[in-house]
């Protein structure tokens, strides 16, 4: 579903991503692990089309992201680590805005939206109040609901559980897992929380200094490392020379 080939990205003279080859199969739950400043957010932004690679190829659901970005964006959902939203719009107006720019059918979208708002405990909060008055968690929940309501085929998330309370985080994780199992969604998340990877991941990728140091199903990584402790695997792979 997601394939990258020889992906490179630099900021000035600093090369952040080096020859990244990644393959995420359809309906998989892929977790990208890595220490701070390893290149996780840059990778996610490259995959979402927010950053342009210096070289390499990205394919999302057989669509070349670099050649046909508009078509690819229709099937991509992206949830950033910081929920920056239009502060002067109300929650409802933001929902309508997203529905209109993605040209979604009003009835189907609103139905989905209502279900998700209820599930994430936001339905009572979506009033005439501006987003600037929402808490961090509410903004994050709003982005999640709006993104899922438009039914993307691929969902990319950068540290999605930051700011969510344990109950909402649990609901969200269950929801994503179910969607993947039903064959409706491919998920790729970046995090440095190992428990999330252990709990949810079908496949894990460990990125270190911009290079993909290890990639595959968790069982395979455990077999290679000779331990079932993901923390030990992570520490071994990411230790500095």
């Amino acid at each position, binding site marked *: 579903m997601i394939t990258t080939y020889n992906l490179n990205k630099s900021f000035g003279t600093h090369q952040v991503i080096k020859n990244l080859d990644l393959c995420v199969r359809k309906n998989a739950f892929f977790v990208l692990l890595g220490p701070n400043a390893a290149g996780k957010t840059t990778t996610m932004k490259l995959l979402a089309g927010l*950053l342009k690679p210096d070289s390499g190829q990205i394919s999302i659901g057989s669509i070349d992201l670099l050649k046909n970005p508009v078509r690819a964006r229709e099937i991509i959902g992206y949830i950033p680590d910081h929920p920056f939203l239009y502060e002067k719009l109300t929650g409802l107006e933001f929902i309508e805005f997203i529905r209109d*720019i993605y040209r979604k059918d009003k009835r189907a979208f609103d139905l989905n939206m209502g279900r998700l708002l209820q599930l994430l405990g936001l339905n009572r909060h979506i009033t005439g109040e501006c987003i600037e008055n929402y808490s961090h968690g509410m903004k994050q929940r709003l982005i999640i609901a709006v993104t899922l309501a438009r039914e993307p085929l691929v969902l990319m998330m950068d540290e999605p559980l930051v700011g969510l309370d344990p109950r909402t985080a649990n609901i969200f994780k269950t929801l994503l897992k179910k969607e993947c199992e039903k064959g409706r969604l491919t998920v790729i998340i970046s995090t440095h929380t190992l428990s999330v990877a252990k709990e949810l991941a079908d496949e894990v990728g460990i990125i270190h200094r911009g290079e993909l140091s290890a990639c595959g199903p968790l069982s395979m990584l455990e077999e290679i490392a000779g331990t079932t402790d993901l923390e030990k695997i992570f520490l071994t792979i990411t230790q500095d020379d």
Partner: protein
Amino acid sequence: MIKKLYNLKIVNFKNTCVASYRRNPYEAVILFSIFLCISSAVLVASLKILSILNGLSVVGPILVDRLMYVLLMIIFLMLIISSIIVSFSTLYNDKEVDSLIFLPLPVRSIFLLKGTETVVYSAWGFIFLFTPFFVAYGIVLRAPNIYYVFLIPCVCLLSLLATSIGLSITLILTRLFIKYRTIVLFVISVYGSYALYSSGIKEIRLLNKLDPTSTIAIINSLVPNIRFSQWRLLPSFWCAEGLSCFIQGSTVQGLFYSFFLCMNTVFTVRITLLLSRLLFYAGWEGMQTAPGTTQKTLYKKKSLLDCLCIPLKITGQHYYAFIKKDIKMFWRDPFQRTQCILLFGLLAFYFGNLRSFQGVIINDPIWKNIIWFLNLGATNLILGTLAARFAFPQFSLEGKCFWVLGLAPIELKKLFFQKLLLNACAALCLVNIVISISSKSLNLSSSLLWLGILMTSLMSLCITTISVGFGVIFIDLKEEVSAKIVSGMGGTLTLIFSLMYIIMSIALIAIPIHLMVTKRLSITVLKQLEWGAGMLLVTISILSISLIIRCALHKISRLEF
């Protein structure tokens, strides 16, 4: 502590410059060259214009003399308005203040830091633009060296004084009228009082003894309108008088006025600092909880704004969504609205002052012609200012939410055209209303009115493209304060380029008509010349529009979030 904060700002500025140079050294060199070219162009143009004016018999030296007073008065008044707008954002809408206020710092230090920022943002453009003019002024009038020595300090002192007044006004307004609606009502009532005054009480004064069509009589009739620049209590008068004394060789008198200005500036700054100690924190605190600014404003599901946007549905579902979002974001931002009210208030002042020219028009075709072109220039200048204030920062104001647009299944270049179209339509409506009202106020013929509409329509398209295009070329997604975006390098360049375009366009059409009216050109030659000038104007406009759109699209294609 304050020294450390200043150092931090300086280091931050230096790092930004170095990073910008490292990212693209050519861009930095090109920008530096553009600024150098603009300064040189202003100097050369000023030399030429001042030499022509000074060479005119009888009225020339009077006009040149008055020009210094009028220009310094304009700078002074504009700086007050500009600093009110900028300080409202830097003092009360800047997240930096929110973090500084929790540091163990005296409020006075925070105010000093943000006040200095306001002074720099408000004044640098004016000083940069007008210094070459005043240098040219000195050259034309063969000023001694002491004039040049005191020129920059005097202009800087005047700028500091004006921005201090602006800062004090902001401090008082926000403390007295914390509620946003009350500020709006206050500003509207000030403008309303002026409108009443100008429409009812003020009378047009013409000297009856002279032939009303003679140059002297017309200048005399215009003088009352600019006589305010020679009011002795006006700080710009002290600056102008001081500089004039230096030019005339009266060094002692020049020094007297310069020190007088200096003392008054120090006094005003001290008063502003005193006011800051009394009012700044209370104002800031009040703004955080004031209804209508940031807190808990509830909007109806379907507001009047939604109803007004309904006709825009014809643009298609996603363009409609973008336009509606832009309009709502603009309208709900109290800082944008305050700027809007201030600038539209200036427009009201302009209409109010037009009445004074009615007496001048009479039947003299030369003056009718001059006033028509002045009106055309003023209308487009108003548009240029409004476009630089509101159209230029539109892309930058997307800020950290740009990722939403970056992910949307729409090409960003189409979004650029959507914003351009929206602004162009608004500009077309505005300038056509302004030119129609002003032409009616000046009792101009319908042919001149239609020519004005045609020219302003073309010019408004180009001015809007300059503003929106430069907004993309100089996009700054990290800056959240709109006033800072506008006062930055991109905003200043937008204003300068708009100004240059307006002057060039009007000169192209005005010179042949003026030559014909003054009987130095026959009608047949004029017709040919006017066609040529018209075609040249259209060509230059189209070329400018294409070039700017091309650069903006190039920038958009490389944009990352």
